[in-house]
Structures are given as structure tokens and as C-alpha cells.
């Protein structure tokens, strides 16, 4: 194996940086994976996000899953939360819609209103 230089150390640090273990994410993407979501195709939405994330090389995005969001007829759904912004819920997703949302909202920071259901949290007591 080739001997490392100090520049190599920094390159390795860049490549292997495990952002998801450090906390402090800019964006959190939640794919709703209740029975309804899974039946409606949430798995392919998740796969699309993972593909996009791999190719984008973004380090500050957390991807997680959660249960049914309560609007089973509008599944597959995903919620995108950006630090300092209210969360945005997207409905009736397809792979193409998800790609566009990823590029514009997750990477670009601008929500995609035509696919969004609502902005903000539900009221919880």
C-alpha cells in the first residue's frame, strides 16, 4: 500500500466522514413507512432517496423512517425538515417527484409547492 501524505489524511477524512454519527444535520428526510405507505410504494421512494444521496455526496442529510402519517390515501409520503424552517409534507410521491424534491428542496433548500400538502407541524397536545 502506498505511503500516506498529510493531504491523503485530509482526503480520507473527507471520504469517510460519518456525518450521521455526529448529529447536527441540515436536513432530515422522513419517509412514512406504515403499512399503507409500504403498500403504496414507500420502498421505491426510499431507494430513490438513497440513490440521490449517494450521487449527491451530501454529508449533512439524515434519512429516517416513521409510521403512518394519518393520510393513507395520499401515500407514499415524506416529510422534509430543514434547520430553522417549518417541516414540509409531500404526498402521492413517485420516483420522479422524489428526485425533483431531492434536487430542489434537500440539496437546493427551496420547497417544491406543487407536490407539497402542507407546511408546518400538526398541533399536538
Amino acid at each position, binding site marked *: 500500500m502506498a*505511503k*500516506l501524505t498529510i493531504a491523503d489524511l485530509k482526503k480520507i477524512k473527507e471520504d469517510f466522514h460519518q456525518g450521521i454519527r455526529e448529529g447536527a444535520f441540515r436536513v432530515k428526510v422522513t419517509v412514512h413507512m406504515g403499512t399503507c405507505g409500504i403498500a403504496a410504494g414507500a420502498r421505491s421512494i426510499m431507494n430513490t432517496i*438513497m440513490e440521490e444521496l449517494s450521487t449527491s455526496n451530501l454529508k449533512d442529510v439524515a*434519512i*429516517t423512517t416513521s409510521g403512518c402519517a394519518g393520510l393513507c390515501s395520499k401515500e407514499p409520503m415524506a416529510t422534509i425538515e430543514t434547520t430553522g424552517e417549518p417541516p414540509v409534507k409531500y404526498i402521492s410521491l413517485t420516483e420522479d417527484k422524489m428526485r425533483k424534491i431531492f434536487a430542489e428542496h434537500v440539496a437546493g433548500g427551496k420547497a417544491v409547492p406543487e407536490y407539497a400538502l402542507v407546511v408546518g407541524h400538526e398541533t399536538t397536545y
Partner: protein
Amino acid sequence: METTYRSNIMICAGTGCVANGSLKVKNALATELIRRNLHKEVKLVLTGCNGFCAKGPVMVVYPEDVFYQLVKPEDVPFLVEEHFIKGRLVQKFLYTPPAEKNTIPVMNDIPFFKHQVLRALRNRSLIDAEKIEEYIARDGYLAAAKALTEMTPEQIVNEMKGSGLRGRGGAGFLTGLKWELCARVPGDIKYILCNGDEGDPGAFMDRSIMEADPHSVLEGMIIAAKAIDAHYGYIYVRAEYPLAVHRLQLAIDQAMDRGLLGKDILGSGFNLDIEIYQGAGAFVCGEETALMASIEGKRGMPRSKPPFPVVKGLWMRPSVLNNVETFANVPPIILNGAEWFSSLGTEKSKGTKVFALSGALNNIGLVEVPMGIPLKTVIFDIGGGIKNNRKFKAVQMGGPSGGCIPLSLIDTPVDYENINKTGAIMGSGGMVVMDETTCMPTMAKFFLEFTEDESCGKCVPCRIGNKTLLSILTRITNGEGREGDIELLLELSQQIKDTSLCGLGQTSPNPVLTTIKYFRDEYEAHIKERRCPARVCTPLVKFVVDQEKCKKCGLCFKACPAGAITWEKKQPAYIDPEKCTKCKSCIKACRFWAID
């Protein structure tokens, strides 16, 4: 380029969790993730000791930072389905603090973790100990690069002295000063040595660091080697630590491969080779001169100092020996500066200290806390208090060389000076907590059995003195104590401390001295009243039920394996001395201290 994963499962593969079956859980997870087709988005990582050993096997799931405990292989399919498919926390494996009902999902909200400050253990639960890239990704080897290319040996020494880091093996000598003394000694061959011969009963700090973050030890050694101009180093590890030896060797091989050890490290022109030397497990080999004799292939016996090892050490060459935890503290000091390090701690004790909590605590495990933290916080907040609703009696700090600290001193700040004032020592970091069922003379006897066994026999005070201490303690606990035994113990202890050759003998009477200092009444009860207040010393227990204290519950009756107890509802129990085998099952079962 690493594959992108949405989640990382960090499974603890420290010795404690492996013994609890964490590798089986890992295999079950690997199988289940493939079956569920999640293996490309969820990554499994084996880490070193997470610290919360009492709850093993433990795992942390990122990005959620969720802490799962006591997971068994058969639970894995349920866990994967709930957490990774449905995105729900699995309540069953979340931590619940003692005496509370609600679970705490997030790792850093759990009191055990919340009060800790991780410096020596900075990569705990965050990296795979067997992958050098993961260490490098957490700023690994950047400090070595800085020391080798941007700093002179004097600058390194000054940074270390400025930080105030003191030897974590127990003696607490200033690390920077030790390096400076060695750097000043002329010589073309010098050695950098790492002491991984951890041997105190109840101590596992160094093992955990070597298992969890072996590269941090190597990096600390590279920096020290540059400071003293050494080009060869040894890590002395006891052979009873096979996992530590395995991971250290793997780390050395990986570093050699990448030019982080060997010739011309990182193109700086500096050379350093490091070799592991496995010790046979003699306690005395943790003493510096005995350790060096052992590496030289001689019998592990200390010699008198001076000359000190910084002048004449291994093979009579100038050598610096530091403890594992000391080396692990070095890289962040070089990267972040002396001031960063000394910002934590007390006036004379800077930084943090790693402790191994064991004994009668709810939360047994490995913790790192800032110097100066009250002992109470460590035992009651981090340690979760005493098991089975019993009462705290004392904590033994510093193993066989240390002493016990009683409840009245529970507010003592944990730093070198304040702990020494109590008669205990900081030591390498073992904390053994005892409740009211511990008999203090018996505890002192236990440690004396250890030191008597481990004494190398070179000097008379240690060889004969400790044996005599042990025989006096034995007769006290056998109910044959004599008037004047306490004074005899005190006098002999002082003589052993004053005249022994090395640290082993100079400290071995400490458990005796501190138990007499704080629990003299227990010794007197043994000697004068022929009574063991903790009901531990069998010859001093009468095995009679106290009719007034007996609550007539029948627990002793159910526990007795010899059928020696008669009991009926609403009647106090009675022990038949003819049938009683003095096994103490009834004493353990009784909740009201009704059996004497």
C-alpha cells in the same frame, strides 16, 4: 468513496458485550438486514466498549442517536422490522433509569452518559476500532502530522507541560516534565514505552481504550517519540487481554502499511517502529522498572531508583513510559492546544479521568468525567446509586494500592490532591463500590491476599510484611483477633510503606490503613465483641434469629437448602444449630437483618 448509508448501527464489541453475546446479535442483524433487503442502507459497525457494560449487549443507532440495551439474537427480527422498516422506537430495549417508569431513547439524555465528558474516549461508539479510515475521519493522525512537520521537540514538550496532563496510571507525574527530562538526556538510542499492564481488580479503563481506539494510543506514542527523539517503542500488554492485543496489532499493521509508522512517517523523515510485548500477567510488572526488566527477558522485578528510567530505562537507555490513557489524551492536546485541555479540571488536576465503575452499583461500566467532579455525582448520578435499594458504605479507589472512602466524604471532588487527602489514591481509575453487606476487615483481607500473592519477593518488607498483615487480618476475620491487633496493623503498615522498594509495597497497606481509619468500630467489633457487623465472617455469626426483628415472612425458611429452619405463618423462624451448615443463604434472603 464510501457507500452512503441512511443509518449506522454501532454494536459494542468490547470484551464485556462480547461476553454477553454481542457478536451473535451482530450476526443476527446482518442476516436479518439482508433478508429485509436493508443491508445497502443500514450499516453495521463493531465498536469498542460503549461504557454501559451492565446493560450489554448494547448498541447505538444513528442518525437517531438511540440507545438499545440487553438485545438478544432472537429479538433481532422484531427490532429490524420496528426500527428500520416502520421507523418506530422499540420501547422494550430502551433504557429506563432505576426507580423511574419512562424510558429514555436518546443516548445523550441518559444520566449515565449525560454527565460524562469524552476526551480520552472521544471515539467511543463512533468508530470501528479495526478500520484506520474511521479513526482518520475523526481527525486521526492529524496531531501526529502536526507534531512531526510543524513542531520542534521543545514545542511539543511545552504544549504538554502547559496542558497540565498528569500520568493517568496513578502516580500523577506531569507528562510534559517526564518527556522534557528524557529529551535532555543525551543518547542515540531512546525508547518510548506504553504501559498496558492494567492489573487492579475491578479496573478496565486501559483495556477499553486499547480495544476501542488503538490508533489513539499509537498516535500519542508517535508524538512522544518525536519529543524525546526515540525511534523504537514497545506496548506492554498483558496476555490476558487477547482482544486488546489483536486490535493493537491490527492497528500497528495498518499504520505500517500506510506509512504512519516505520520509516519516514508522513514524509517527515521521522522513523518509529512499535512492537507489542505481551506480559504474563504479573501485577508487579505494571511497576516501571519491573516492566522494563520483563521486556528485557528478565524476571519481572523492580529495582531501586535512581537512576530513573528517563536516564537509564529499558536496556539502560533513556526511556519514557506512559500509561495507555495518558497517550490517548495526547493527540487532542497537540491539535487543540494546552489551553483547551486545561480549561477543564481543578487547579492542579487538569482534563478528565476515565473510571471503571464496578461493585454494588446499578450502572456498572466505563465513564470519563472532568477532574473535580464530586464523587457523589459519579456514584449516584452516573452510577445510578446502589443496587437492590441498599445503602452506600464505601468506595475503594485505586485498587489494592488505594483505599476506601466512606459516606461522610462522598462530596470529595475527584482530583489527585483531594483523593490523596482521604488516604485513597486516584490510581489508574478503578472504583469498586460497596454496600452495607460488605465487611471492611474482609475487604482489606481480600486486597492483602492479592498483594501478598503478587509481591515479587525481592524486598523483605513487602514479602514478609504483607504476609504478616494478611495473617493478622485472617485471625481477626476468623474471630481470633487479639487485643492490640489494630495497633499492630497500623505500626506494621507504616513500616511496610516506609521501607518497601517499589510502589507495590509502598501502597499495599493502604486498604488496611483506610479501613481502620474510617471503620475502626468494625475491627473492634470483630476483636472485642467477636461479632461481624456485616455478617460476612462466618465464624463470627451465631445463626440465631432475633425474635424482635423477625417479621415472620418465611423468606429464610424458603432459602435454607439444609432444611435447618422451622417456620410457620405468623411465627418467627428458628434455626436448628444441629442441621445448620452456615452457608448464609438465610442471611442473604432476610430483608430485616434479623439473623445474627
